[in-house]
């Protein structure tokens, strides 16, 4: 009957192609996933770097600060002294140059100081924790424990808190007003500081104070020392004493010809301090070639800029009078596990010196643990289990005192981990770190889509002006540059709603859910071609095999 009403030769009603569910063609299905950005993975304090950069690029600095300080209580400090392993793994480095994460962190830290943003302690749990040492590990554990709501008391042997941040890192890298301000913020959340208060007996102090748990964060504060053959007439100092004296404004002996022995960051700190104290001539003697020295390249560069001399591939054989005998070394042809090492050549030379400073590493002070058998010490460190607990129940350890990379950042990360472990332990549980997502490596991304955006260079103080005092060398980014730098982030592994998948699907098989809500596949129509996965700039889509 109805056929009569249709146009000529038409027998069926016209219908939409929606009736044709092309999803049945599919053998692979796309899914939205989150991958772990390499910066987040590399960060020893486990910061959600990508997260706070994303807030910073929208000028939400308070939000960025809140997110950042969930993991790291010291953005203004770490924005200066962190050796930023995040930047070394930043995928943008394979495109042009890594995002200047550290400089943006510093900017956010400054915003926190300017606006006087404060931390909040957690709801009181009634538990009391004793922390030994107000260095980065101790302060970080105190901060995180306080956020859990525990009461914390820090015992510190020195007059001021900060540990190596104060007594190891010179002012020109970390101005003291920034250090003090960020430590004071922890004090304001209710952490009690007992300064000039060295702990003599851990168990006794714990008992007297009625503490439920202990964190040992005493660091590695004793300089490694070696004596040389010969009749030396010059003072031989150690790096930590020199840096501590400088901080305390004690008179020191950095005059005339200063020779520093060592190739690490402490050696550079001493050399640069000596220049600022007016030494006539500063020479660093390193056993390694410049490229293999353990000091960070920028430290070496700035040391050289300021006029110190670095003599590499030498070792000290003897000291006679004011003459130091050096033996020439050479890099061995052989490599062990990817590292080259140096061998002696037998050739010698000598240089004159008025003072020698040894910067050849630090060891821990064992005195405190000698009578506590369950706390095991080997390889110059306290041995801990994977929840940071020592052999003695309720006693945990963090920072340089345990086996680690011995950097401020690592110590802050330990502080976070030990706080979580203690919190779990207090609740009768064992701390288990959350499982991590697969890493968003560069090959999972489509970098063509990212605009060319050269890295912003932080202003640096002229070398000539640095020598006269302890003014800060590296400057701040201004607001525009900080925002620009944050926007260079490629959001590796996490959707930033660029609409690429939604736009390029030839089958309209993606629904856009609106800002902040992401997208959804319409599996009724998705043919599984995989274009969305290939063209996702940040690698937030994966293809999975269908069960067929």
């Amino acid at each position: 009957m109805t056929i009569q009403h249709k146009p000529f030769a038409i027998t069926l009603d016209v219908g939409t192609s929606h009736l044709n569910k092309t999803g049945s063609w599919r053998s692979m299905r796309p899914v939205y996933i989150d991958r772990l950005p390499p910066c987040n993975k590399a960060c020893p304090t486990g910061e959600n770097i990508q997260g706070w950069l994303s807030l910073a690029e929208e000028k939400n600095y308070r939000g960025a600060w809140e997110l950042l300080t969930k993991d790291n209580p010291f953005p203004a400090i770490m924005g200066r002294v962190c050796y930023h392993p995040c930047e070394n793994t930043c995928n943008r480095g394979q495109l042009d140059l890594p995002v200047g994460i550290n400089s943006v962190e510093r900017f956010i830290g400054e915003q926190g100081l300017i606006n006087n943003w404060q931390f909040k302690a957690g709801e009181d749990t009634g538990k009391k924790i004793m922390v030994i040492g107000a260095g980065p590990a101790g302060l970080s554990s105190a901060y995180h424990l306080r956020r859990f709501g525990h009461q914390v008391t820090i015992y510190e042997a020195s007059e001021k808190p900060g540990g190596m941040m104060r007594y190891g890192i010179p002012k020109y890298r970390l101005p003291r007003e920034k250090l003090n301000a960020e430590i004071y913020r922890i004090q304001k959340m209710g952490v009690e500081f007992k300064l000039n208060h060295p702990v003599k007996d851990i168990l006794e102090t714990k008992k007297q104070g009625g503490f439920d748990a202990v964190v040992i964060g005493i660091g590695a504060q004793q300089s490694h020392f070696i004596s040389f053959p010969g009749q030396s007439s010059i003072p031989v100092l150690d790096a930590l004493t020199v840096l501590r004296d400088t901080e305390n404004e004690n008179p020191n002996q950095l005059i005339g010809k200063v020779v520093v022995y060592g190739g690490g960051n402490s050696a550079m700190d001493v050399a640069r301090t000596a220049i600022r104290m007016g030494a006539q001539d500063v020479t660093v003697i390193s056993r390694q070639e410049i490229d293999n020295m353990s000091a960070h390249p920028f430290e070496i560069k700035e040391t050289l800029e300021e006029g110190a001399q670095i003599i590499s591939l030498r070792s000290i054989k003897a000291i006679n009078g004011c003459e130091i005998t050096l033996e020439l070394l050479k890099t061995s042809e052989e490599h062990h596990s990817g590292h080259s090492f140096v061998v002696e050549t037998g050739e010698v030379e000598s240089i004159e010196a008025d003072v020698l400073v040894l910067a050849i590493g630090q060891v821990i002070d064992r005195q405190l643990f000698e009578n506590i058998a369950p706390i095991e010490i080997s390889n110059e460190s306290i041995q801990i289990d994977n929840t940071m607990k020592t052999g003695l129940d309720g006693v945990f350890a963090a920072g340089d005192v345990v086996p680690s990379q011995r950097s401020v950042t690592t110590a802050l990360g330990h502080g976070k981990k030990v706080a979580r472990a203690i919190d779990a332990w207090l609740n009768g549980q064992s701390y288990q770190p959350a499982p991590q997502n697969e890493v968003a490596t560069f090959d999972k991304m489509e970098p063509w889509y990212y605009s060319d955006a050269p890295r912003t260079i932080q202003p640096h103080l002229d070398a000539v002006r640095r020598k006269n005092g302890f003014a800060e060398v590296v400057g701040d980014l201004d607001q525009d540059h900080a925002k620009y730098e944050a926007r260079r982030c490629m959001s590796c592994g996490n959707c930033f709603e660029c609409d690429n998948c939604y736009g390029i699907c030839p089958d309209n098989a993606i629904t856009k859910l609106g800002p902040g809500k992401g997208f959804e596949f319409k599996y009724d129509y998705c043919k599984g071609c995989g274009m969305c996965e290939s063209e996702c700039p940040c690698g937030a889509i994966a293809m999975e095999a269908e069960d067929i």
Partner: protein
Amino acid sequence: MTKKEQPATDEQMIKFYQTGTFTVGNRLLDEEFRTVQATSERSNSIDSGHRACQGCGQALGARYALDTAMRVTDNKIIAANATGCLEVFTTPYPETAWSIPWIHSLFGNVASVASGIAATLKAKGDTTTRVIAQGGDGGTTDIGFACLSGMFDRNDDVLYICYDNGGYMNTGVQRSSATPGGARTSTSMPVGEHPGSSFTTGKFLPAIAMAHEIPYVATASVHDLHDLERKIEKAMSFRGARYIQINVPCPLGWGSEPAKTIKLARIGVESGLVPLFEAEHGDLTNSTKIRYQVPVEEYLQLQRRFAHILKPANVDQLETIRAIAEKNIKRYQLL
């Protein structure tokens, strides 16, 4: 309603970093600068359920072009369609994937059908409804060429869009006059002394269209949506005959992975083999610059139709293809 040009102030420049205008959308861009395809309100002129192969470049190119035209004309578009993949995969009787007024013509006469629609609209005094004719490269450069040239000559008010995938893919991948030199098709097999499609002087239709001195000619590619949408919008701002050729990779005919469609479109352009430019009244007015130049081999090796070119015996053919890229780069100032 037309899109604004991108402002060039410092503030806006800063906003562009991250992906700038290279992705379909960009959450840092003001809404008004984003593409039509980034919006939830796009027309979806060709909708889900069509029967194009996985990763079809043409399905994508056609939706990009028509959605933009729909937005620019306030949804007043009539489209005519030559026989070919686009017609076959969208309208198997009685289904249709089109959500716009659409008519199927013969293989060779779509330009004339569109001219007729334009004449009818004129006779009816309708000045707001606009006409688009579309076809593949076979229906355009071979079979429909006479009708198209006539449409240009009469300067009829039609935008003709050619989706160029370099062959008669619908009927079994036969060679067309737009098939690139050296490419394998079912009628130009990689055998004998000169394997693959012959390197003739070619029939590059955008240049022929320019020779007609029609108001607007452009080439576009599915990998650069902002560029493509801008060109459609520009074309709709003219009256008279206009021609746009969109490069649309075809996984079936090219022997490429469906997931690589956009990538192929992109490196085709970045290698210089697919020049993107615009011309007005016969004069070249603009060319889209190559961002990161890639060697032609990178483009060829992703397509089985060129597999023989990369064999040592055929190094002459590879040289010829390189020379074509270099000539394009020079002629259309692509660097």
